[in-house]
């Protein structure tokens, strides 16, 4: 039992990080198969069935058709329902780093193509991913590379590629590149543009397409990060991929997303990583594997640093909302009103397809302010407090199975366990148990028992501890 509990607690941690959480029954089943097997399954989505009836979802939500599915709601629906949770979680990872915002690009079909590209390349070679993002129509428009011409460069993409997508401004207190590198980088990407698109009038929006225009490409020699040649964008990507700064940058991002909240990106030049040993291990794997993200993830998930880092990250709004829905078992199939779910994430401060700037979302404690905290607690409490939800009903039944009467402390402990082995501070645990004890003896076979469970669940998700994943 102790061992089982340990395995399930670890599995709960893995599924919160490498996915959007899971119900207890799934945790048990996965723990029985083993941690390594689950990691492998998550890392190899291409050989697995995603378990979704997207076909039917598209039929019900007709606007998710194969041409117009570029809706943030579709992305959220996949987050909730895909069995290949890591694949979806990596889409969100890259969406928050290689950022474009629909507020500027104004084309959901184009934004969706980008997410699909992340799904395809997000766990492959980082070098390939950089190449794909450089050809991504949403990105080309978002960072104005379509306005960068031979002899009249626009530096926007060239700069952000280095600063926010691959190397970062600096490392260990030193700058990683110069202003000249930015300009040379931008020169190398001249001619990487988008075709004149079919306008959204009168028949609706079309996804934009990448084109390379050799006539607008600057064929002159460029000197970039100390190397000189008639570089094109692909050469630049090759040079970037082999930089130690790139290994550091990606490692820190993976660490911050999967292990524990790091400082915000602009502080990375001056602020060393929280856990240099783990970063070093990831950097080594980056080079050893030929820039392979999947290999880095495998090393990460197998590391003790990962396994021991429970509840070290503030859940993002998307993790909060999607995790809650997966926990209670809602939205497993389409029904009217899905926009509401999407709005909830937005009101907590994270809107799919609309990161607030090219820097992506700020994370950690910056997710929380007075407005978003109230919103987060109330949203989560409303769902877990609804005993009609299948996942909540399951928790009530599990608790009732313990016997006709349950002690308040046991009820608190067991409920935390069923939520995915949440750990409460001892004071918090005592307060919640005392709150339950006020109701007198807790008979599990009464109609009121479900109300008690509902109250307790609402209190647990309102704790500070529950803010973390």
């Amino acid at each position, binding site marked *: 039992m102790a061992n089982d509990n340990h395995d399930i607690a670890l599995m709960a941690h893995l599924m919160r990080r490498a996915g959007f959480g899971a119900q207890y029954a799934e945790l048990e089943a996965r723990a029985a198969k083993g941690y390594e097997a689950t990691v492998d399954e998550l890392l190899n989505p291409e050989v697995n069935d995603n378990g979704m009836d997207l076909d039917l979802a598209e*039929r019900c939500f007709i606007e998710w058709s194969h041409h117009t599915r570029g809706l943030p709601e579709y992305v959220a629906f996949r987050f909730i329902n895909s069995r290949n949770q890591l694949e979806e979680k990596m889409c969100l990872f890259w969406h928050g780093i290689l950022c474009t915002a629909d507020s500027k690009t104004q084309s959901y079909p184009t934004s969706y193509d980008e997410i699909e590209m992340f799904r395809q390349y997000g766990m492959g070679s980082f070098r390939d991913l950089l190449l794909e993002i450089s050809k991504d129509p949403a990105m080309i428009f978002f960072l104005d590379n379509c306005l960068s011409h031979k002899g009249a460069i626009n530096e926007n993409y060239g700069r952000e590629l280095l600063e926010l997508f691959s190397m970062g401004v600096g490392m260990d207190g030193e700058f990683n590149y110069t202003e000249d590198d930015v300009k040379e980088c931008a020169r190398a990407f001249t001619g990487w543009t988008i075709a004149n698109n079919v306008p959204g009038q009168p028949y609706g929006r079309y996804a934009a397409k990448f084109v390379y225009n050799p006539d607008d490409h600057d064929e002159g020699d460029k000197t970039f990060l100390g190397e000189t040649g008639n570089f094109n964008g692909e050469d630049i990507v090759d040079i970037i991929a082999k930089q130690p700064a790139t290994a550091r940058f990606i490692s820190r991002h993976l660490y911050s997303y999967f292990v524990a909240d790091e400082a915000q990106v602009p502080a990375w030049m001056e602020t060393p990583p929280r856990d240099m040993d783990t970063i070093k291990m990831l950097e080594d794997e980056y080079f050893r594997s030929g820039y392979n993200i999947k290999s880095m993830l495998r090393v990460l998930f197998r590391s003790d640093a990962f396994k021991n880092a429970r509840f070290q990250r503030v859940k993002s709004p998307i993790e909060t909302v999607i995790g809650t829905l997966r926990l209670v078992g809602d939205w497993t199939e389409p029904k009217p*009103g899905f926009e509401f779910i999407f709005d909830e994430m937005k009101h907590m401060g994270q809107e799919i397809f609309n990161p607030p700037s090219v820097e992506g979302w700020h994370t950690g404690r910056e997710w929380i302010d007075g407005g978003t905290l109230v919103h987060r607690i109330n949203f989560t409490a409303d769902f877990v407090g609804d005993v009609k939800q299948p996942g909540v009903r399951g928790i009530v039944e599990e608790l009732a199975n313990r016997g006709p009467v349950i002690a308040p402390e046991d009820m608190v402990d067991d409920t935390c366990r069923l939520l995915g082995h949440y750990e409460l501070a001892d004071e918090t645990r005592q307060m919640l148990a005392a709150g339950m004890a006020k109701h007198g003896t807790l008979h599990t076979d009464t109609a009121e028992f479900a109300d008690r469970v509902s109250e307790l669940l609402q209190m647990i998700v309102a704790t500070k501890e529950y803010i973390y994943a």
Partner: protein
Amino acid sequence: MVTQIDIAPVTFQYSHTIGRQEVRSGNGFFNPVAITRDENDLLYVLSRGTETPAFFPCKRVTVFHPDEEEVVAEFGQKIPPEDADETTPNGAFMWPTSVALDSNGLAYVSDEWLNRVSIYDQEHGNWVGMWGIPGGAPGEINRPAGLAFDKNDNLYMVESRNHRVSVFTRDGKYQFGWGGLGDGDGQFNLPWGIEIDHNGDVYVADWRNDRIQKFAPDGTFLMKFGESGDGDGQFNRPTGVAVDKDGHIFVTDYKNDRVQVFRADGGYITAMRGQAGLSKWGAERVYLDPTIVQARDRALNLSEREGAFQGPIAVEVDDDGHVFVLECARHRVQVFTKQTAMFAGEL
């Protein structure tokens, strides 16, 4: 331009395109899913609309003349999802799927979320009644999809989640039905569109089985054709079916973005891929804004990209050889005319 297929006895001349994306009402459609025609040649297009509340109210039936391209009536309305329960107002839609007309010209609209059929009068589209009891027993309905009337005003309804066809009188009295989940003859898997031909025979787009099944009016299985794939005669989620007076069968092959045409015996003839141009309603909109006109002039491969079918979802025919293809993803109807071959004998 004429689409000429090797030794095909039938060709189709593109005529014109009707529609544009129009979110709420007016000269256009928004995610249209069904099309039908009345005895005066007016077309009825049902727009499914969107899930985005900012665009409510947005769902409706648009009645228009296909030649003059004039809207003569609009009715029906989308309601917010939180109102989609027993309190739903009369005549409102949530997830409308199909529209059919009885011999008096009343319009019947199925709703697969509310599990009911709403009825509207001919002149003004006023709501006049509704029926439907959710469930799985005979006479109850679960996720109604296609609707079609026979000559005696019996309403043939495809019930996608009951995987069957149920036949009702027009006031909702259950007559008989057939089907069940499966891939055997007379079984269905999430069926969608339905058509009744001049002889009263019934064709069902058996959506997830990627095939068309044909039945006698009493439900007796007659034939089937099609299988999964993207080759000739194969389907990827067929949604709609229509049969013209010559017995030619038209199928919207939704995810293959084409309309396939078959002989009465199910033999493959040809496929249409679409060649839409700028519609009258589209031009009304586009020419108001010089920046759009310029953007269209500059667009790469505009006619090719814009012309192709995207999400052809339903098809209607008339006795004059017109074929009306409704495209969900592009909010329009492409109209074609069937050409009589100069030489139709054996070569």
